[in-house]
């Protein structure tokens, strides 16, 4: 398949692995974080982690939209979905995330709430048009990748004068989360959290960067002095990005480099950015799972679109809720521990019975480690 096969070429992959192994022998350890859940999934799916030299440790980042949404917002979604006359539309990934007492949207649906899985927010606008007597709420989640589609749906609803369409907006932003990962000093946490996450380099988001551009991460290099390489999602992409990071680290450089130039431009996608600017404004403070409240880290509907804002129209409340005591999703999301270090991983917490969000989404580090992780034992055992 064009644009895919050349990035899965076995000769190229082997040659990259040789180069990485050679280059990564200069230091004892290279701790690299792949920020984006899509990358975490790809590293596991292609079985790349066991092929990397022992000196390279891949640390999983918080770039999984399902994972970073705090339990209070899941509870709010379940509450909204259960209201009389509401049709609640959500991406499939969100349905199984457990809220307080394990209550998920999927369970609320089984109990009678009208919850529909959709693939595009435009479908929710369509459903609103077809059901004029119901109020249709779209559960908008995701980073800068899904936000433009929400913006487009809002524009369409406005143009078509659909007045029973609402957005429960939970769009979060990548750069503040990256900042939070890098700034975390390990001050507030348990035994393994001592020094913060100490990363030497970042495999930067691919899809997000296609929207916001490679320029959005300059603080990583300039302030934090950490190299970042934006990467695609195929084996050749990921290994090239790892090699570029190892070279930067060896040479003492901290630059923003772009391995995914076939998709990501320095300026991003101006049309999508313009659309988001038109429809959204910054949320003063937004709660993230694992990070707590982060300033200017999310988007909400601008005042022009207030009539579509489910939070304003329904007076959504966020009663204090806490994650399952044994769940260490927060530490996983901050890159402090590997999923396997969590005491409930693979035991009580499994994809069929997730205690935390990281075990739900295919982009979640715990789900990826659980589904594919045994490959490490396979390779070492055979």
């Amino acid at each position, binding site marked *: *398949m064009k644009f*895919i096969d050349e990035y*899965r*070429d*076995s000769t190229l*992959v*082997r040659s990259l692995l040789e180069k990485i192994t050679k280059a990564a022998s200069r230091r004892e350890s290279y701790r690299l974080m792949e920020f*984006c*859940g*899509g990358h975490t999934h790809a590293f*596991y*799916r*292609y*079985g*790349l982690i*066991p*092929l990397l030299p022992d000196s390279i440790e891949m640390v999983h980042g918080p*770039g*999984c*939209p*399902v994972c970073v949404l705090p339990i209070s917002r899941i509870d709010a979604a379940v509450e909204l979905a259960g209201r009389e006359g509401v049709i609640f539309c959500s*991406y*499939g*990934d969100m*349905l*199984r995330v457990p809220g307080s007492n394990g209550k998920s949207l999927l369970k609320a649906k089984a109990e009678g709430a009208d919850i529909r899985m*959709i*693939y*595009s927010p435009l*479908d929710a606008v369509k459903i609103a048009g077809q059901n004029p007597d119901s109020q249709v709420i779209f559960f908008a*989640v*995701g*980073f800068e*990748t*899904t936000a433009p589609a929400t913006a487009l749906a809002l524009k369409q609803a406005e143009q078509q004068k659909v007045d029973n369409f609402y957005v429960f907006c939970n769009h979060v932003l990548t750069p503040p989360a990256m900042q939070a990962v890098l700034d975390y000093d390990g001050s507030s946490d348990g035994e393994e959290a001592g020094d913060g996450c100490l990363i030497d380099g970042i495999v930067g988001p691919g*899809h997000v960067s296609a929207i916001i551009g490679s320029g959005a991460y300059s603080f990583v290099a300039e302030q934090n002095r950490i190299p970042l390489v934006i990467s695609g999602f195929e*084996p050749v992409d990921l290994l090239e990005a790892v090699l570029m990071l190892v070279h930067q680290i060896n040479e003492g450089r901290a630059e923003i480099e772009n391995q995914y130039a076939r998709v990501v431009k320095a300026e991003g996608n101006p049309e999508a950015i313009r659309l988001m600017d038109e429809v959204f404004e910054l949320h003063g403070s937004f709660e993230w799972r694992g990070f707590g409240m982060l300033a200017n880290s999310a988007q909400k509907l601008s005042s022009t679109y207030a009539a579509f804002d489910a939070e304003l129209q329904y007076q959504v409340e966020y009663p204090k809720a806490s994650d399952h005591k044994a769940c260490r999703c927060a530490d996983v999301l901050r890159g402090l521990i590997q999923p396997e270090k969590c005491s409930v991983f693979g035991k009580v917490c*499994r*994809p*069929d019975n997730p205690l935390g969000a990281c075990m739900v989404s*295919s*982009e979640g580090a715990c789900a990826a480690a*659980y*589904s*594919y*992780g*045994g*490959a490490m*034992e*396979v*390779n070492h*055992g055979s």
Partner: protein
Amino acid sequence: MSRRLDIEHGVIDMSFGAGGMASAQLTREIFAPELSNPILDRMEDGAVIGMPSGRLVVSTDSHVISPIFFPGGDIGSLAIHGSVNDVSMMGATPLYMSVGFIIEEGTPFSTLKRVAESMGRAARDAGVSIVAADTKVVKKGEADQLYITSTCFGVVAEDVQIGADRAREGDSVIVSGFIGDHGAAVLACREEFGMKVDLQSDSQSLGDLVAIMLASGVDIRCMRDPTRGGLATSLNEIAATSGVGIEINESAVPVREGVRAVSELLGLDSLYFACEGRLAVICAAKDADRLLACMQSHPKGEHAAIIGGVTGKREIPLILHSTFGGSRVVSVLTGDQMPRIC
């Protein structure tokens, strides 16, 4: 005698489920002409069938597919192929079927007619007779147009011993052709994706292919048609039941370009896509080439390939080796695969 049904314009109303004249008319004018055979045509409360020699094999499947018409098939042909293939996987010859229809009020007669025609055709192709049938009508909104439950009866010779518990270390794993066509074709034609991919479901009966495989004399250890849950699930089940491990090579698994495109686009794994006209078979390694050649000599096995082998018992039942030396676990899915959102 009431007027004939207006098949072009009419729709099912609740009276067609009341068991009276309308129900009889529905059977007589829509289903009976397509499914007719001497046993069914007697319209008794039960079908009386002479028992053929051998052991009886029975399999039941319910079909709730959406949309009911898809490229390469429909719910009617699928209801035949699904149950017939399950019986064939036991090495049996499928002979008779019983089918039940749950019809939603408001479903057009023309839809039912089209489904009945397709069922009749599929049954004749598979060499089975539908000897018992039932229809029920439910209120609008209580079903999605049409659900079909089908049961197939077949016989298997005494000396055929196929079972998911018979895979042994050193055996070979063969698939009969491209995997995932059905799952990908159905996903792609769903309105919400708006994809334009030229894909056809692989829905077909496998009885004739299985017959020549049995005739080859090779000891077939295990055989499964990888329907719901796809090849990944079938092989996991065999590994668990036999207490062995299975390893497959990614580059050896036949997957069409279009299927790969759908899986890449939606972020799904084609190993979990349903097939409705393919089989996975396990035999001793020494027999593998002979069985493969036999399968490839039949049109339904033209693209058959040896995709891997059986190992001793291990903690991870199914492992996939990628072309560049990476390996990963292929686990059993928890629920449906969900398209990615990032």
